[in-house]
């Protein structure tokens, strides 16, 4: 399984913000969820991968080739295999759906007019509708239709489902699942604040916080193995004394009536502390406690 996108030690600084040694990859056949707070650096990392901003240092490899070594012509050829969806419908206001299809057709050698027509029809996007008249959800669907209609190997979505209603988000996720299932050699990088979407579709999670990688793991490590233990003070003391977990690896949040402890293995915890309630961790819980919790 090769990597479609590999970022290593990416650094990019602006006035009061800097990406520092950010690294992650998107393997074939996988969905990588990029999470983190507002201003953490997710979009900057994506823009660097797409050549929209120039990295100060670091390595970006697309489909096995170093982008820094590519000529502009070669980079344009590589972009034939990438589909991008941003958080806005990024087309000129007066352009119609048909116009946008024509622009995309002239851009991508593998443009599939039939597929674009099928997708826009299925999602209720009239050919004569202007970009400025599309709702947020319809604009996202148009952008997604464009990204899905040129046989891209890599999809990069930056907050593409933000502001969508649950049904529209489910439609988007279905389209992405269909895209991956169609053939081998495809992958998705998806930046999102809507962690429930990532719980449904992601294989890996990468968290960026304050310009650095906070954690990078398989999604199942979070949702399939980690847990939130609802502890009393005595339970916390017992937990620290039992030696089951390495000191400094647990995160906790002291609440009014309990201390919520993020444990990396809820099954081991349940075996050792059967009387303490423990729930599966959601991505939100994991993020919150990893980034904001107290170290135990």
């Amino acid at each position, binding site marked *: 399984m090769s990597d479609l996108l590999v970022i290593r030690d990416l650094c990019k600084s602006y006035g009061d913000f800097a990406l520092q040694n950010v690294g992650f990859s998107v393997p074939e056949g996988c969905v990588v969820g990029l999470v983190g707070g507002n201003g953490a650096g997710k979009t900057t990392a994506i823009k660097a991968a797409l050549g*929209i901003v*120039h990295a100060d240092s670091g390595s970006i490899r697309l489909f096995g080739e170093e982008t820094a070594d590519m000529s502009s012509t070669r980079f*344009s050829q*590589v972009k034939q295999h990438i589909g991008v969806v941003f958080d*806005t419908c990024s*087309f000129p206001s*007066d*352009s119609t759906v048909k*116009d946008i299809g024509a622009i995309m057709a002239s*851009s991508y050698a593998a443009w599939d007019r039939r597929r674009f027509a099928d997708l826009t029809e299925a999602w209720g996007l009239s050919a004569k509708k202007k970009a400025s008249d599309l709702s947020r959800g319809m604009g996202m669907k148009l952008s997604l239709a464009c990204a899905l209609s040129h046989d891209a190997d890599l999809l990069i979505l930056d907050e593409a489902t933000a502001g969508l209603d649950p049904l529209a988000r489910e439609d988007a996720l279905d389209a992405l699942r269909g895209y991956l299932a169609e053939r081998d050699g495809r992958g998705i990088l998806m930046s999102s604040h809507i962690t429930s979407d990532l719980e449904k579709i992601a294989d890996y999670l990468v968290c960026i916080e304050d310009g650095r990688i906070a954690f990078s793991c398989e999604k199942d490590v979070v949702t399939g193995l980690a847990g939130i233990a609802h502890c009393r003070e005595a339970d916390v003391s017992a937990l620290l004394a039992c030696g089951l977990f390495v000191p400094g690896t647990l995160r906790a949040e002291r609440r009014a009536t309990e201390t919520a402890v993020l444990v990396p293995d809820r099954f081991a915890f349940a075996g050792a502390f059967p009387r303490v309630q423990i729930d599966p961790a959601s991505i939100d819980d994991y993020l919150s406690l990893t980034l904001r919790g107290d170290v135990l």
Partner: protein
Amino acid sequence: MKTMLLADFITTRKYLVQQCVLSVAIGLFVGIANHSALLASNMLVVMLFVMLSISLLALDEQNGWQRFRLTLPVSRKQVVMGRYVSLLGVAILSLGVCLLTAAIMLGVGSAAPGVVVVDELVEGLAGAASLIVGSAVALCLVTLLAMSISLPAMFRFGMTKATRFLPALCLLLFCIAVMLSAQYAAEVEALLNALPTWVFGPVGLALLAVAVLAIYAASCAVSVRLYESRDF
């Protein structure tokens, strides 16, 4: 580059048609009111060229289109060159519209001089046409020269930021020109007297066109370098 040209044309074609039709109407109104096809065509070529260019350049800052366009399989060089070619097309379109307006006025003025008075017809139809074509082409080239100076700033800073300091720059250049013309009054007067016969003549226009197009191409090269180094 084909993608850029198609994108520019597709997204502005309705606006282009509207503005051209409106401009012919305005040009005829101004020309007939002032008895001057020369005034109408000169006004139109600059007004239409500048208006259509601004509309085209403003597209980039709609809805993040400029940023998204960079994710398409086009290089930044192709983006810039495509835009320069589009603007050249706008120049030719503006010239065509202004000459059409002048032709309508000259035609009606010749056929029905009591209905539409066109002062330039005292030179005869051929003389009037020659004067109008010469001045319209010269003005179009001068406007293209102004574009050549402005475009690199727009590609470097974006249209919104560039339009904040370009007027000040134009004012500075104008003040320098006024100072120089005051200092070299005799030479400037001789140049202005020679303009109608020299610049507006075929040889002068051809030389002016070559010079302006060379500067336009150099401007394109500078814009490519600036655009390639820009972060979005």
